[in-house]
Structures are given as structure tokens and as C-alpha cells.
């Protein structure tokens, strides 16, 4: 515990120092007094130091307690939202949620094609973020823990934005193929696009088609007034190479030949090992979560 702070010492020290100024030089008394002053100053600063130390420790302790409280609060929060979203799903702690987000983010960032949407994760994280922001509003100004939390929020928001951004970029890049794939999926299969992304992709396609028509195509000869978007816009290149880390051991992965001279062969992927492979070979494993792109 920190005791109450007596505040007279410093005054006394100054007083002694002033007295010392008045003593003539070479006096024996002076050096004795000087020693005394130094001793007192040492005791004083050591006292103040230990007070500061204690204050700091107490603050850190309070911070950890508050952190724990906010953790449990958000635990409950994510529990509630998880339960309402899907009853069979295991309850996720915020740490697990963030880990899941990071996994989805990395996979999305490094895979050449659009992966399955993870809108539950996005929603949960968004909820978490608003919740944390609300908590932050209650904290008084200049508090140490506020800035730590702020930083955490910023980081999570960056990951989330970056994840959504890379999805949107892929949609814009390959929109005709993505919409085509969405159209051809079987009834009842989950869509790769979230409803919002689907709306965006459709608008983007319509907008671009209208534009091309308005500027040039309608002035062209009648047999050339349409452009086949599927042919004009590049397809995602599934043969590009990706780095991956294996999370669950896989056996007998068939690697197709790259050139005509090579022959196909089979590899086993050990858990924890890292590889550089063509995306097409391991696409199903990425989807199932058995490997992680890095």
C-alpha cells in the first residue's frame, strides 16, 4: 500500500542548501553539512522512487483486473451470439475468435481464388469491436489501459478490414467467373459470397456492362455489340504457387505433373511441415482447414 505523502521535506532541503551558500569557503563545517544534505537527498529520492514504483505496480494490477473483467464480459457476449447463430457450434472465446479471423484472413490473402465467406466470424468480430469501443468510452482520459485497448482495437480492425478488402478485390477482379460459379452451384449449397458481396458483384457487373455499352459498344456494328465478360475478364489462376503449413497430417496427396516430361506422384504432408505447392493441388485442404496458407 502507498502511505499518504508528507510534503515538507523538499522545503527543508532547499533551506539547508541556502544556508550552505552563506558559509565561507574552506570551512570544515561546510563539508560536513554538504554530506548531511546529500544523505537527506538520497533518502528523499529513494522514498519518492519507491512510491512511484508502488503506484505503477498498483496501476498494472488494476489494469490486469479490468482486462480480465472485459474478457469475461466479451466471453459472455460471444457465447450469446454464438448460441443464437448456431446451436451445435462449440462456444468460442474471443481469443479463439480472433485466431479464426486471422486464419481466414491469411488464407484469403494468399489464395488466388475467392474462398468461402466467413460472415459469422465477421459479424462476431464486429460485435466484439463495438463492444470494446463502448467499454473504452467509459474509461477516463489519460488512462494507460485505454491506449493499450485502443491499439488492440486498431489491430483487430485492420485485420478485419484487410480480410474484407482482399475479398472485395478478388470479386472485382474476377466478377464474371465468381457470379458464374455462384449460379452453377447446387441448390442448398452454401454460397461463396455473402449476400452483401453478391449484391455488390451484381451491381459491379451491371454497372460495367452499362458503361461499356454507353461509351463504345452501341456505336459498333450490330454483330459486335456484346462483349463476353467471361472471356474478357481474366480467370483466377489456380496454378499459382502458395506457401502452406500443414495443420492435420495428410496422406497420399496427388501432385499433378507440371510439364509433359514429369510424371504425377504422391506426397504425404506431415503435421507442422511447410511446403510450396500449386494452389490447385491443395485447394480442397484449404477449404477444409487442414492446411493454412502462409
Amino acid at each position, binding site marked *: 500500500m502507498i502511505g499518504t505523502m508528507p510534503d515538507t521535506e523538499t522545503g527543508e532541503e532547499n533551506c539547508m542548501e541556502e544556508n550552505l551558500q552563506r558559509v565561507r569557503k574552506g570551512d570544515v563545517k561546510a563539508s560536513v553539512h554538504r554530506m548531511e544534505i546529500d544523505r537527506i537527498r538520497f533518502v528523499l529520492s529513494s522514498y519518492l522512487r519507491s512510491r512511484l514504483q508502488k503506484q505503477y505496480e498498483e496501476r498494472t494490477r488494476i489494469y490486469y483486473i479490468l482486462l480480465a473483467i472485459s474478457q469475461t464480459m466479451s466471453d459472455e457476449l460471444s457465447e450469446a451470439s454464438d448460441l443464437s447463430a448456431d446451436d451445435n457450434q462449440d462456444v468460442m472465446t474471443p481469443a479463439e475468435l480472433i485466431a479464426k479471423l486471422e486464419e481466414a484472413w491469411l488464407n484469403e490473402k494468399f489464395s488466388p481464388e475467392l474462398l468461402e465467406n466467413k460472415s459469422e466470424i*465477421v*459479424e462476431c*468480430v*464486429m*460485435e466484439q*469491436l*463495438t463492444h470494446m469501443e463502448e467499454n473504452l468510452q467509459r474509461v477516463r*482520459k489519460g488512462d494507460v489501459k485505454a*491506449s493499450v485497448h*485502443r*491499439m488492440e482495437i*486498431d*489491430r483487430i*480492425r*485492420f485485420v*478485419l*478490414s*484487410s480480410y*474484407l*478488402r482482399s475479398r*472485395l478485390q478478388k470479386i*472485382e477482379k474476377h466478377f464474371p467467373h465468381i457470379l458464374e460459379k455462384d449460379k452453377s452451384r447446387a441448390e442448398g449449397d452454401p454460397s461463396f459470397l455473402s449476400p*452483401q*458481396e453478391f*449484391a*455488390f458483384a451484381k*451491381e*459491379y457487373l451491371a*454497372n*460495367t456492362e*452499362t*458503361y*461499356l455499352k*454507353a*461509351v*463504345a*459498344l452501341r*456505336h*459498333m*456494328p450490330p454483330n*459486335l455489340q456484346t*462483349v463476353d465478360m467471361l472471356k*474478357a475478364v481474366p480467370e483466377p489462376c489456380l496454378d499459382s504457387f502458395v506457401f502452406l503449413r500443414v495443420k492435420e497430417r495428410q496422406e497420399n496427396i496427388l501432385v499433378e505433373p507440371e510439364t509433359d516430361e514429369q510424371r504425377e506422384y504422391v506426397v504425404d504432408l506431415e503435421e507442422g511441415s511447410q511446403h510450396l505447392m500449386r494452389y490447385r493441388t491443395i485447394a480442397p485442404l484449404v477449404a477444409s482447414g487442414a492446411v493454412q496458407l502462409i
Partner: protein
Amino acid sequence: MFCEKAIELIKELHRMGDGQLPAFNEEGIRQVLEEMKALYQQNQSDVNEAKCEGRSELIPTIKFRHGCLFRNQRCIAAYLYDRLLRIRALRWEYGSVLPTAIRFHMCAEELQWFNQYKKSLATYMRSLGGEEGLDITQDVKPPKSLYIEVRCLKDHGEFEIDDGTVILLKKNSQHFLPRWKCEQLIRQGVLEHVVS
């Protein structure tokens, strides 16, 4: 030669380098379209002739012209589409309001496309998560620290930070600001991140 004008359009874009938007070449497009029209008319009369009078020696010429027509169409579509991609990148860089110098380089239809794109993007971002949505054009770089030191490159006027304090952004003044507030201003070129 056929298709030269169309290739010229593509080269013009290519020469500008990454992300820069040259003025919309309406004249070039018009010339290509006229060339296409002429080619098409010649082809039609030749087709009629080949059909009625059985002149099969015309067929290779017709095929050649047809190829040219397709090439022209492809080039124009590529020109326009590449411009759209550049305009799209501008939306992410400058936010929803473009500088007038850039607007000047766009044709009316491009502006229309841009507005529509802006709208789609805004709808998408609003629909994310809670009621306010999430602005994913922010937070482009991973955060390293909460506050960054910035220098003002031009007069911007007053600027309000989260806690309500208003600061005056004057040219050549330096400030210590929350990163998430000034990211966009940095991209617009109003502020400069001072790395010491």
C-alpha cells in the same frame, strides 16, 4: 493499316505508368469506331457480292476484315476497362470526392460509372456488421503505434479529433495525432508522416 489507332490507344495508357489517368481520348475512340463502320460496310457489300455472284475469292478478305473488327472491339474494351480499374483505384486512394484535375480527365460516362461504384461500395460497407457498418477503405497499413507525427503540407483548416479538440492544420505545422484520424489525409497529400 487497320487497327493502328486502336493499338495507339492501348499504348497511350501503357505509357502513363501505374495508376495515372490520362485524359479520355474521345477523338481516338471515334476514329476507331469510324474505321470499324467502314470495315463493316465494305464487308457487307462484299458478302452480298460473294453470295449473289458466287465470287468465292472475296471470302479471305472478308475474313480478314472480320478479324480486324474483332481486334478493334477487343482493344477498345481493354482501353475502357483498364481506365475503369484506374478510376476504381482512385476511389480507394482519394475517398469519395475526386480532385478536379482528375475529374477533368474523365468522360461523362466514366463519372457516372464512378458514382455508381461509389454507391455500391458504400452500400456494401454500410451493410457490414452493426448499424454503422465498417469503412474498409481505412486501416490500409497495419498499425504500429497509436499516435504518429505528421507534418502539414498544405492549409487544410480546422480538424476535429475524437475527443472534441479542434486543431488548426496550417502549412508546415507539425502535429502529434491519432493515426486512425489522419490516414486518409495522408493519402490525400494534406499531411505527411514524419519518420524520424
